[in-house]
């Protein structure tokens, strides 16, 4: 079930909200757990069992780590092996077989397993829990229902953000439900829904037009680059907004996952603003344990490359994701080694253009289907290969999607937020905000009812 679906919006959500607010406080976590399992069951009727088994295993390992302090490292390693083992089996086995087969005369057969939705997200949450218990950063959770509620919590279950146990440890026991928090949740949810349905999906259509054309021009390559870059941002940040908003409706406060990444001026800055919960997870659970930057230069370079290769692999079992991760790792190294000193002297506009180009190319790699296609889509941006600059088809789509592109570009910056936060406009904004929100909800509903293009990019992770 995805948030931008009729099933979720007009059936699942009203029923769950009603039951949640009717039952006494002591049953609220139970309602959330039941709702989360149903939510997951609806999309993954078989793999819900896998998730429950994973939760039970994490619960037991948490207890063992806490109880047998002298052997806690052993249990931690075992728990990570189980969690990562399951992830590798379902996500990477065929990728491994494919690559091993390149060297074998007698090929190994592929296994027939589908990727359980959200497994990459909830596996990372489980690891964060056991590591935090091991480190003493979190108290062990003795109530399995509360731990299960945390891991399976439907707002963040299938596409993040990766909520750390320590973030909501206290909230699981004791959280407040106020009108202000609920209405803020509604605001975030509706804005996220609009970002997803009205911008990401529409620009996804434009990107698909490019993929279906026989007449790619330089203009069309740029339209593809820009639209897919905006699509992935609005898709994923829209989903995070909806998750954070839903969390608030149920009394939780999740950490932010995006902070206007496209206004960043360096790659380092970009990754402080993009998918924050993932990059901070890798920092705290991989990079720092490897020694971070407090090691020799060679080891530091090794650490960065390991972390970014794993970041790439986390996104998918395919070489283009590995290349995508290493691309960012290498750029970060270049920036840290010398480029930052040069960039610091340049005006912000140049730095932003540099960053946007880097990121646009990264998403061409990310979306690419094979090296040839990736190279074609990158060189096409610069007209290499004698392709024409413009055609009536690409001009048609440019005009057709111009307004959405402009809205997307403005929406990816804090311009509108800063504008509406001006004191002079507060009365005006106060009156219009509820109307604006209702309109976004209705218009988004109309797009969903119409059955328009509605994928969720981060579901495959």
């Amino acid at each position, binding site marked *: 079930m995805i948030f931008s679906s009729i099933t979720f919006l007009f059936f699942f959500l009203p029923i769950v909200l009603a039951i949640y607010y009717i039952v006494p406080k002591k049953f609220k976590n139970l309602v959330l757990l039941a709702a989360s399992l149903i939510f997951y069951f609806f999309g993954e009727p078989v793999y819900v069992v896998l998730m429950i088994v994973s939760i039970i295993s994490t619960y037991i390992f948490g207890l063992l780590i806490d109880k047998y302090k002298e052997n806690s490292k052993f249990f931690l390693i075992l728990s990570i092996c189980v969690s990562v083992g399951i992830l590798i089996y379902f996500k990477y086995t065929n990728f491994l077989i494919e690559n091993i087969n390149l060297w074998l005369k007698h090929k190994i057969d592929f296994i027939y397993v589908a990727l359980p939705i959200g497994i990459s997200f909830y596996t990372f949450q489980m690891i964060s829990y056991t590591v935090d218990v091991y480190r003493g950063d979190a108290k062990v959770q003795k109530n399995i229902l509360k731990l299960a509620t945390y891991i399976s919590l439907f707002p963040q279950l299938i596409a993040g953000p990766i909520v750390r146990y320590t973030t909501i440890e206290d909230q699981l026991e004791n959280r407040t439900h106020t009108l202000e928090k609920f209405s803020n949740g509604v605001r975030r949810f509706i804005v996220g829904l609009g970002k997803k349905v009205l911008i990401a999906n529409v620009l996804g259509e434009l990107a698909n037009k490019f993929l279906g054309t026989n007449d790619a021009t330089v203009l069309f390559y740029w339209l593809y680059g820009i639209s897919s870059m905006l699509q992935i941002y609005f898709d994923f940040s829209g989903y995070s907004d909806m998750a954070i908003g839903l969390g608030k409706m149920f009394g939780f406060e999740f950490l932010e996952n995006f902070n206007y990444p496209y206004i960043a001026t360096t790659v380092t800055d970009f990754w402080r603003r993009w998918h924050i919960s993932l990059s901070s997870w890798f920092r705290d659970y991989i990079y720092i344990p490897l020694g971070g930057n407090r090691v020799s230069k060679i080891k530091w370079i090794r650490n960065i490359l390991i972390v970014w290769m794993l970041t790439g692999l986390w996104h998918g079992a395919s070489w283009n994701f590995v290349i995508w991760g290493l691309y960012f790792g290498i750029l970060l190294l270049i920036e840290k080694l010398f480029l930052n000193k040069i960039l610091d002297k340049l005006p912000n506009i140049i730095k932003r253009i540099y960053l946007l180009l880097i990121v646009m190319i990264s998403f061409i790699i990310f979306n690419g289907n094979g090296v040839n296609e990736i190279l074609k889509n990158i060189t096409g941006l610069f007209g290499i290969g004698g392709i024409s600059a413009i055609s009536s088809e690409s001009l048609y789509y440019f005009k*057709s999607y111009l307004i959405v592109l402009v809205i997307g570009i403005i929406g990816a910056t804090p311009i509108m937020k800063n504008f509406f936060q001006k004191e002079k406009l507060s009365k005006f904004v106060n009156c219009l905000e509820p109307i604006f929100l*209702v309109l976004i909800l209705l218009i988004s*509903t109309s797009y969903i009812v119409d059955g328009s293009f509605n994928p969720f990019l981060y579901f495959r992770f």
Partner: protein
Amino acid sequence: MSNRVKDAIVTLSFISILVIVFLINIIKEDKLISESERRKLASFPEITKSTITNGDLSQKFESYFADQFVGRDSFRSLKSFISLNVLKNKDNNELFEKYGSIYKMDYKINEKALQKSADKINEVYNKYLKGMNVYYSVIPDKNYYLENDDHLKMDYDKVVEIMENSLEDMKYIDISDSLDLDDYYKTDLHWKQENLSNVVNTLENKMNLNESKTQDYELKNIGEFYGVYFGQLGVNVEPDEIYTLTNSEIENCVTFNFENNKKGKVYEESNSSDKYDIYLSGPVALLKVENPNSESDKELLLFRDSFGSSLAPLLLKDYKTITLIDLRYVSSKILDYYIKFENQDVLFLYSTLVLNQNILR
């Protein structure tokens, strides 16, 4: 407005919309078909062990909820309005409007499909039609007549080229110069029967129907016509008017539908939501029309799609019988079970839209 009041309004509005829509959706009766979209709507999914375990259930529920959503048509119109008028998208769901007429963006040529369509026609020729007078023509879709917007037109010349290269033993009749944009409905993909005189003349000329007499028709208004694109685009475009060209000779003709073994008339109003079905009962796999008042002994086998339904009555003056065969609905392998192939005239008359899809059986 204090923040607390604003919070209350935001919360109440959201909850009200969710709850009201939820309740109405639960209470209201399900619809079987959508008139505006011309399709069956999804019904409540069957819940079985297999639909649950194979993961199809969520998709089926979503289709059901979306199809049966309260005010579905209004929401679709709202989406269309926002898409076309606010966001200024040039098309909505692959349809666009120009000068009050609706067009589908069905312009991408599929050479493999075209070749397979040609191969199928050749197969029929080789099996049944050798030695007979066999003609073929390709009906341009209306985008072909759009001024400018070249990329929105299917490459008609390429379609004809593929057909000509493949159909060597048949005679090609070019009707593209016999039509104009005004000869197509604004809200539908089809041509207007009352505007087909040039097409008929071209066909008669090339098919050596020189003895054909000129005939007077009475133009009969059937009423407003909301074509297939009307409901799909969801914007306000003036409906068309639909007419039949008739006379006593046509009215005396008798049709025989091989599917249900029923006799009927050339023009019959039905309960169908598609008024274009007035012509020869709409989509029928095999239909024979007999003209008892014909002065000719000639017979025609018309391999056709829906465009043929409105054209065939205008060829009745030249033939004693016309047998209409729609290879989309009947397999070419079993045609000799129903039809005796003798010395009939044969015309393959398919639109680019059908040839480009590889749907001939």
